[in-house]
């Protein structure tokens, strides 16, 4: 790789479970800009079984679109010379199901939860959490370990100087299970111990014959302290050493890249943290993929990530249907849908995961499923993104069993910015659709900015930051982050049509005033790059951020959608009556100009397609 100072061009790929995405970044007049993007299906399965085939296919698309030669002799040309090749190549990966970790701790809501946060923060999927209070018998825990075949096991437990015996007991269970690694039958399963320092030696003795043990600093050295860095770092190291090295084609890919391959969620997480830190914001980020949905948040400087392993838009879309229920998906459609047809369509998407909606009806149905996937993933995030449990009161382990949960750190009224990423949000034909999906799923309150990853390139920029923070930051703000605008949403409930909020906006020299009744949405134009001072006067019973009925004045930023006034109330409840609900959804779509024409969408979903014949 050329020196960071001298980087003229960078190629970055993200090998997702469904699609491999490649972006070409070039330095133009001293500024790094996105040049083109290409994509191709990920190739970790037959007939290819080599991730680099998909990488080369995606890069070939970049070649075709940019007219620049990037591949020679089956590899990426480096360094850049005579207009060919690039100076650096980096990649992230979540293909092969990502990094699958099993967490073992003592108390589910304390050390086990800290361990879970460490694993999630490292970009892992947590397959299960075993703890003394998980309600299972030992043989059930052992069976679970054998059945799941994780990529690695993270054992925590005990504050330093505290409980030892129970920690060793859990380690003995791991040894008794003798779990085999998911990939690579010949190597020992990696196990990380990040618990009580006093338990290190007995844990080592318990596991020496059955696992490749690494010991790192206790992730919960005291009740009041959570130190996730060392465990996170070790998880990522093992991800490279073991998981990546065993996945089809990865050893070759690792030989091509100029920086370690990062797990996709870790790359996105580091980018979200950077945004929050740089601008001092409370941020929620979401990356909705084919198999999983990751939610990231930074509130008051505390970073959290959760991954919903079986909520996604292709491989896992049937699980969204199973978890949310068909009714909850149907409720977001501006039509009277045919449940049988929708159920079958969702299953067909699961078995042909790389297909994309071709009709408006199909698009609306996927957007409906996305709302539910996002909503469920966010619910899971709220449950894990909490204050440290066990801190407030002096108590021992026994006291913690069944103790009331700690306060969630997620405060929707304090939230400043929501950033959406992932195919269904980044590729929504109209940006308004992405804004509406995020508002419906997350229900922001008060004043909240919305943005999307323009073409789903946050993963690549996250890993790019490891070799050039300057290039990553420049491209992120100039080409990646698309400001959608700002959402104003008073919290509270009222009667449909009753007064809810009055908003006065003064963009530039002009002034606009609008009263929005309860149950309605409105859109005020406020373009990208523009800011305006708004005065929000909620009626009694509604809170826009300063308390019920109190006026809020704020400087809001525009975007490609504008200023959205959402007077549907919080919590958001759709009308129970189907006809009323459909009419309401159509009004909201019209108010935001979200879809081309509801009648057409209706026709697309219900009209008779060509008869299917046997071929």
């Amino acid at each position, binding site marked *: 790789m050329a020196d960071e100072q001298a980087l003229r061009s960078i190629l970055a790929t993200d090998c997702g479970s469904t699609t491999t995405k490649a972006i070409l970044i070039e330095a133009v007049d001293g500024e790094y800009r996105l040049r083109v993007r290409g994509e191709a299906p990920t190739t970790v399965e037959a007939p290819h079984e080599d991730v680099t085939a998909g990488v080369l296919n995606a890069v070939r698309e970049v070649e075709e679109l940019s007219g620049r030669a990037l591949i020679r002799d089956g590899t990426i040309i480096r360094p850049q010379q005579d207009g060919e090749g690039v100076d650096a190549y980096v990649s992230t990966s979540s293909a*092969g199901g990502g990094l699958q970790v099993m967490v073992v701790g003592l108390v589910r809501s304390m050390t086990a939860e800290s361990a879970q946060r460490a694993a999630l923060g490292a970009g892992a999927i947590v397959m299960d959490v075993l703890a003394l209070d998980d309600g299972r018998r030992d043989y059930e825990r052992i069976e679970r370990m054998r059945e799941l075949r994780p990529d690695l096991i993270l054992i925590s437990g005990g504050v330093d100087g505290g409980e030892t015996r129970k920690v060793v007991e859990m380690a003995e269970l791991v040894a008794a299970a003798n779990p085999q690694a998911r990939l690579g039958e010949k190597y020992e399963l990696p196990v990380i111990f990040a618990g009580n320092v006093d338990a290190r030696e007995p844990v080592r003795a318990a596991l020496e014959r059955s696992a490749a043990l690494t010991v790192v600093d206790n992730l919960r050295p005291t009740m009041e302290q959570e130190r996730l860095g060392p465990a996170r770092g070790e998880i990522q190291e093992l991800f490279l050493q073991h998981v990546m090295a065993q996945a089809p084609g990865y050893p070759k890919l690792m030989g091509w890249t100029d920086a370690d391959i990062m797990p996709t969620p870790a790359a996105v997480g580091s980018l979200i943290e950077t945004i929050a830190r740089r601008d001092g914001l409370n941020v929620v980020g979401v990356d909705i993929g084919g198999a999983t949905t990751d939610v990231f948040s930074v509130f008051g400087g505390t970073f959290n990530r959760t991954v919903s392993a079986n909520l996604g838009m292709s491989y896992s879309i049937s699980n969204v249907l*199973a978890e949310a229920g068909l009714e909850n998906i149907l409720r977001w459609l501006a039509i009277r849908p045919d449940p*049988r047809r929708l159920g079958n369509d969702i299953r067909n998407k699961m078995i042909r995961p790389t297909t994309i909606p071709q009709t408006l009806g199909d698009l609306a149905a996927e957007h409906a499923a996305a709302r539910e996937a996002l909503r469920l993933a966010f619910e899971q995030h709220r449950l894990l993104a909490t204050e440290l449990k066990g801190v407030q009161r002096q108590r021992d382990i026994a006291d913690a069993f069944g103790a009331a949960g700690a306060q969630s750190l997620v405060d929707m009224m304090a939230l400043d910015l929501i950033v959406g990423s992932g195919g269904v949000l980044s590729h929504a034909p109209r940006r308004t659709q992405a804004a509406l999906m995020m508002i419906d799923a997350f229900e922001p309150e008060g004043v909240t900015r919305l943005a999307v990853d323009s073409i789903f390139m946050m993963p690549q920029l996250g890993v790019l930051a490891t070799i050039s923070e300057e290039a990553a930051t420049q491209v992120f703000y100039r080409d990646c982050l698309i400001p959608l605008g700002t959402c104003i949403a008073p919290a509270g409930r009222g009667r449909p049509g009753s007064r809810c909020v009055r908003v006065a906006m003064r963009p530039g020299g002009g002034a606009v005033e609008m009263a929005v009744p309860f149950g309605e949405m409105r859109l005020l134009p406020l373009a990208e790059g523009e800011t305006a001072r708004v005065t929000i006067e909620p009626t009694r019973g509604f809170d826009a951020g300063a308390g019920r009925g109190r006026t809020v004045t704020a400087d809001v930023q525009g975007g490609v959608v504008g200023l959205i006034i959402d007077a549907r109330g919080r919590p958001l409840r759709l009308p129970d009556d189907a006809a009323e609900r459909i009419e309401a959804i159509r009004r909201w779509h019209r108010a935001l100009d979200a879809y081309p024409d509801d009648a057409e969408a209706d026709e697309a979903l219900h009209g008779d*397609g060509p008869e299917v*014949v*046997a071929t």
Partner: protein
Amino acid sequence: MTAATTHGYTPGLRVTERALIRRVRRLPLPGHVHVQVGHEVTAEQLVASTELPGNVVNVNVAHELSITPEDVPALMLEGEGEPVEARQIIAESRAFWGLFHSIARAPITGTVETISDVTGQVLVRGRPISVEIDAYIDATVVVVQGDETVVVETRGALAQGILGVGGEAHGRLKMLCSEPDELCQAELIEDACRDCILVGGGRVTLETLQAAAEVGAAGVVTGAIDDTDLDEFLGAPLGVAITGQENLGTSLVLTEGFGDTPMRRRTFELLAERDGRRASVNGATQIRAGVIRPEVIVPEPGATWDAAEEQAGGGLAVGSPVRLIRRPHFGLPAEITELPERLEAIPTEAEVRVARVRLEDTGEVVAVPRANLEIIVQ
């Protein structure tokens, strides 16, 4: 501008009369291989077996004897690795000249796995669990690796499905339907279906599957099913397409998917031509990395196989036969007439890379997202 070829779009499912089929039969742990290279084996023939370690049950001996963990090893009556019977006394303590007597018993029959002086726990491992693996297909043993892996090979017809449930089974092929779009109804199931792999055509109903399981059919292969019927048959909603472990009484292979979709004619005819022949079926599916497709295999030991076809799976090109795999043309065959390089808007307003294809039935040329094409391997 039009690109001559493009790369890596959805490879079609394999449906071929002439395949070289190899299947790896691997034990979960090393054990005993019962065949040698060159042996002719039948589908039901045992090729390898082993014993898995039994389940582990713990006994908190320190607690039961009211002693400290470090005293446990000295009070054990059986050492690590020694066999024990259920209810057998494995540790004993006496205090005050035998006045207070405490014992700990083995919860199951097995062997003492570990005795911990840190936790005071004793782990007892139950009796080994026997695992036997058959050949799955009528074939020849071509590889034996150590004491855990056998590779069997045959030539013959192979039809991959898109989704299946249930595991491996074998039996004679029996046609239920006479056309690939015929509804696969319960009335078609009769006693003669026992032990057979039943070939339907169009959508299969829940009642048909239940009747097939009741009569003892080895498997059902058909075009499609309604999602609610599949959930009912499984007893729970199918969340992700990772299957094969279900115990349903009969295995199911869907060649097309969900809804009223007929079986592809080529698949139907391939199976119909082999009506009555011995075949193997496996519903196991994994639509994730390391993809596994359900399959029907009809061995024909003397058949030739097409090496070129084995290598197929390349790119799209003008003239390529394809199948459209998304509404509004789901299931239709077509031929690529143009591969425009520039992005084009489709009815959803999304701008994507498309292929222009001529629909085989009407001759109409339509633009379809390349992602919604499946290559038909000729």
